[in-house]
């Protein structure tokens, strides 16, 4: 949809203009990787047959995409509360394009951030698989994942009445996403009940697939299944966001 593209360019224009946001995001990426890398490497030398840096990077990348999605929801909420969305709503464009434009800009930022993190990770000793198709596949999955979480954040943003309310709601599902996933520990070491919970979390599929595609680790879950789960998740969460957004417009 053309309107999605137009709205995406507006978000990106603002993004590149805001030096603080740019620098903040870059520093944050570097810090995450450096802190995890330096702090943990001393303790843990090797997880599931790969070095710790390569093991932890996909998780950090997934989590920073989550942070990006939360920020994308914030932008929608801010535009809603200040009335800026009215400009979109009175224009001859589909409602969905407003949400997709926002999700696409979140995904773009997540990709930039991931690239930066990978570079820092490599400098710190992570070992990337020599397979450009794998890297591209991993980035595509990351984009789909970012769109999925944007959908959830946008849905919450569409119905929140205040910034505090939004953060309260987001916090509810942000924390479990970090710990109830394979980001920090391999799937095999988890007890059965925990594994069941972790397998509900879309982040688990992304992290597993990225480990396999970009770092050459053996996949725990079939790649096609991870791709399918992520695609379904993204579609469902955008549908969720659209339903809530429409509901908020009924007045």
């Amino acid at each position: 949809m053309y309107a999605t593209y137009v709205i995406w360019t507006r978000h990106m224009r603002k993004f590149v203009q805001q030096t603080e946001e740019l620098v903040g995001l870059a520093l944050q990426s570097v810090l995450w990787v450096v802190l995890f890398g330096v702090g943990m490497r001393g303790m843990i030398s090797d997880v599931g047959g790969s070095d710790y840096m390569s093991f932890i990077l996909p998780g950090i990348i997934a989590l920073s995409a989550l942070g990006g999605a939360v920020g994308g929801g914030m932008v929608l909420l801010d535009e809603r509360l200040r009335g800026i969305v009215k400009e979109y709503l009175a224009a001859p464009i589909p409602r969905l394009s407003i949400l997709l434009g926002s999700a696409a800009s979140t995904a773009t930022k997540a990709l930039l951030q991931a690239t930066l993190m990978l570079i820092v990770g490599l400098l710190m000793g992570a070992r990337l698989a020599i397979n450009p198709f794998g890297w591209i596949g991993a980035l595509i999955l990351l984009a789909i994942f970012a769109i999925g979480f944007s959908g959830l954040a946008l849905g919450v943003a569409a119905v929140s009445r205040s910034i505090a309310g939004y953060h309260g709601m987001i916090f509810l599902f942000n924390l479990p996403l970090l710990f109830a996933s394979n980001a920090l520990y391999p799937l095999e070491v988890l007890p059965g009940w925990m594994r069941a919970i972790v397998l509900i979390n879309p982040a688990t599929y992304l992290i597993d697939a990225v480990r396999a595609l970009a770092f050459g680790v053996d996949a725990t879950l079939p790649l096609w299944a991870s791709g399918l789960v992520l695609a379904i998740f993204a579609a469902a969460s955008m549908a969720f966001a659209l339903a809530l957004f429409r509901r908020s417009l009924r007045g």
Partner: protein
Amino acid sequence: MTELAVETIGLVKRYGMLTALDQVHLQAPAGQIYALLGPNGAGKTTLLSILTTLLPPTSGSARILGYDVVRDASEVRRRIGVTFQEMVLDPLLTGRETLDFHGRLYRLPASVRRQRIAELVELVQLTDAIDRPVKSYSGGMKRRLELARGLMTDPQVLVLDEPTQGLDPQNRVNIWSYVRDLNRRRGMSILLTTHAMDEAEALADLVGIIDHGRLIVTGRPSDLIASLGSDVIRVRGSGDFQHLATVAGTVDGVSRVETDPAGGLALIYTDNGSRRLPAVLNTISNNGFAIEDVTLARPSLGDVFLHYTGTALRD
């Protein structure tokens, strides 16, 4: 039959228990300036939100240039330009980016966008500021930019919600002159809301008075005013307004007395104000009413408002 720019039939909007619009039948002919005049909370913004497809009606229907705002929403959106009551501008974008982005949303080709921006910037006198970020604009400049944005798509119907709210007199008069120009030169149909009667008098071909969600009366400002009588004696003061109305009504040549005790105001309509003034003042001050201030004038739209709603229009 003349073409209608805006038509609503039995339009109702409820927010929960609150009825914000109550059976509104409105007809605004194409090519004219229609002003909706009403106090805070009258339902003006609600009505415009429905007309601009932002809000669905509870019942009844509304059409813009014959297109239903619910069923043919995208046809309506293509044909209207809007400015909202609150300023809705992105502070980080420049004026030019704001206009350009708006044009792109409506799929205007780059050459058309460039040309329109050049024209509009001239029209609303923002030439010097157009490449600065909007956050550096004054309130009046922001309003003018918003007006330009509403005009980017060369709309057939322009909808303005309180276009001069919060502006200084000079900016107000500027906006008035742009609005008049657009209407006279390009034949643009314009629907605007205001709670300032001087604005309605200065601009409107047709005025609709709205209060508590009901469209109470519609007409040309001059007709509405003429229907009240030839002269009005406006008396401000304190005392028993009911008694004042009774005694003043008995004075020769007085056709009607209207009072707004809360506002400390009485309007005494006469056939000839300057001739009846002494007798009227004599009668009411003899009856214990303390007069603070008297003016003699032709009736205004404000008096029309008081006549139809029973309270003065305060802003």
